[in-house]
């Protein structure tokens, strides 16, 4: 196998304030191959967006303490100086954000914002960059693209704005695309269109992609592999079909049980009892143990080590190898 595009080793992110320290990301390790789509699945506060932002060092430098190692295309991201970082951002790696409403500068036109990115990384004349921007808007299937170029963000609908955002992210041919819940803020019908577009562009351009979402349906639509995060740790990882068919971690199983999947209408959805732990005071053991029906004494002493019941599958649960004989 070729060398991975992204290699994250033992990534830790803490947010330090005078009053407290929040352990947002705790020992996250994963890798992404070129052209592969990894979905990071998790609920709010599970550390998925923080992990994504850490990859581009977009976290506020004065509050966030990052340790571990992040390598993108062989470059040590945490060791880059300002100039190297600026080349990496938008060039090698680019990001799509959740809220297209607030993620674009309201007082510059869509065209200006794309042109600016292109000229920053590729140089060239304004006219050439504008021609390229037009191509990009057509690539993301924005109707009457030439006029849209001179529109301000507020003049576009949410779906078009997100397409413009995608065009901007693709403008400099990134090898890695980071998508932070790009469809969450959109209407359901627009959501699926944007998702299909992203999947197609990703495949056509061969970009490695990390896609953060809390939506199992979205994840199953776009992912090659899924990593499930809980309280700042990846608690399960594996190919999308395997995870959906056979979740190993009790939390992943709980997530699947809590979706609508053809139950009778009068039945309540099986929600996971309790709520996620306070990131400022994580329990010493498995962070999910307080909500887990199968928790035993071992779960409370130390976070479970990763277990690998099958090639490409990982879960951090003490019961995994014992309970899944088909993988043993």
């Amino acid at each position, binding site marked *: 196998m070729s060398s991975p595009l992204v290699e994250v080793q033992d990534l830790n992110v803490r947010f330090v304030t005078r009053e407290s320290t929040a352990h947002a990301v705790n020992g996250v390790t994963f890798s992404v191959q070129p052209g592969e789509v990894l979905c990071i699945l998790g609920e709010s506060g599970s550390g998925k967006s923080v992990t994504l*932002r850490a990859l*581009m060092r*977009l976290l506020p430098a004065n509050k966030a303490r990052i340790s571990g190692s992040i390598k993108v295309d062989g470059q040590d991201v945490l060791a880059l100086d*300002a100039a190297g*970082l*600026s*080349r*990496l*951002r*938008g*060039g090698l790696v*680019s*990001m799509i*954000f959740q*809220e297209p409403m*607030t*993620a*674009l*500068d*309201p*007082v*510059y036109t869509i065209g200006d914002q794309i042109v*600016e*990115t292109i000229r*920053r*990384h590729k140089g060239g004349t304004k006219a050439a960059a504008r021609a390229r921007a037009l191509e990009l808007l057509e690539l993301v299937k924005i109707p009457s693209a030439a006029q849209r170029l001179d529109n*301000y963000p*507020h*003049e576009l609908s949410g779906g078009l704005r997100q397409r413009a*955002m995608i065009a*901007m992210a693709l403008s400099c041919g990134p090898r890695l695309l980071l998508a932070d819940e790009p469809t969450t803020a959109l209407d359901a019908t627009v959501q699926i269109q944007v998702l299909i577009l992203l999947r197609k562009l990703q495949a056509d351009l061969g970009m490695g992609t990390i896609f953060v979402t809390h939506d199992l349906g979205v994840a199953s639509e776009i992912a090659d592999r899924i990593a499930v995060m809980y309280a700042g740790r990846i608690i399960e990882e594996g190919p999308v079909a395997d995870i959906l068919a056979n979740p190993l971690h009790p939390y992943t199983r709980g997530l699947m049980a809590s979706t609508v999947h053809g139950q009778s209408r009068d039945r309540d959805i099986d929600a996971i009892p309790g709520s996620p732990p306070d990131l400022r005071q994580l329990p010493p053991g498995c962070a999910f143990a307080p909500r887990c029906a199968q928790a035993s004494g071992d779960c409370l002493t130390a976070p479970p080590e990763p277990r690998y019941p099958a090639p490409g599958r990982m879960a951090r649960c003490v019961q995994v190898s014992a309970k899944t004989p088909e993988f043993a």
Partner: protein
Amino acid sequence: MINLFLRRLMYAVPIAFGVSVVCFSLVYLAPGDPLQTILPSDASADTIAMVKAAYGFDKPLPIQFLKWLGRVMVGDFGQSIATRRPVVLEVTGALYNTSVLALFAVPIAFSTGFSMGAIAGCFPGKWIDRVLTGSAVLGVSLPNYWFGIVLVIFFAVEAMVLPATGMGANGSDQFNFLRWSDARYLVLPVITLSMVPIGIIARTTRAAVAEVMNQDFVITLRAKGLSETAVIRHVLKNALPQVLAVMGLQFGYLMGGSILVETVFTWPGSGFLLSKAIINRDVPVLQGTILMLALIFVATNLLVDLMQSWIDPRIRRT
């Protein structure tokens, strides 16, 4: 854009009319009779009636207003009761003198205040922010006439490097742009007048910049790999409409002149004229000056409005 200009201009007309009504009636709401100052205390009833008729004070108020407005429209504000000179000359002369100060105070105050606020807003909580915001608060809080007197004591009385009062070699007569030595007369009043606008603009800019810095799109700009300079350019453009609103007000205040500062430096500007008119109960001068200043405010607001919607297209729609 032209449509927008015409629409805003149409809004300005009723405002200007309202202002003129207020100007006209304010004087009648104030206690005291303007005729008292020009009539001897033992004037007979006939004389009073005659003078009243001569100035048109015997007509009903709406008629007086319309007649006054009709004359004002053609630039005739009547005659000063105190000096007997046409009010237009009094007001334009005073406005000219004040605008000489404003011509220098506006660029100095606006650029200094904006730069201070922008730097402070880019580094919220850092020592540079504390120093700049602290000086801005000081600028707003110090009474500027007191500050003017302190400057006079230091630079005119003690060091004797700058003149204490007046507008030029001929005293408070006429400022001459072509005489280089007259520039020395500007230094102290311009510095004194700049203090408050610097402080207010710096604080507004700081707040606006710090707020924009926290918006999501700034992360997008960084994620695009833009240099910090380019990011700050985006932030400043976003912060500018808010700052312009405050700058417009400050411009109006500077054109209105400061009664106290102009008195300290014996600079016969619009503030000085207003105070004289109030003391003398010189109704026509008072009306003329207030109306002119109010119209300057209306015009400035119109201009600010247009600049804001030129910078931020979201404003155009509302």
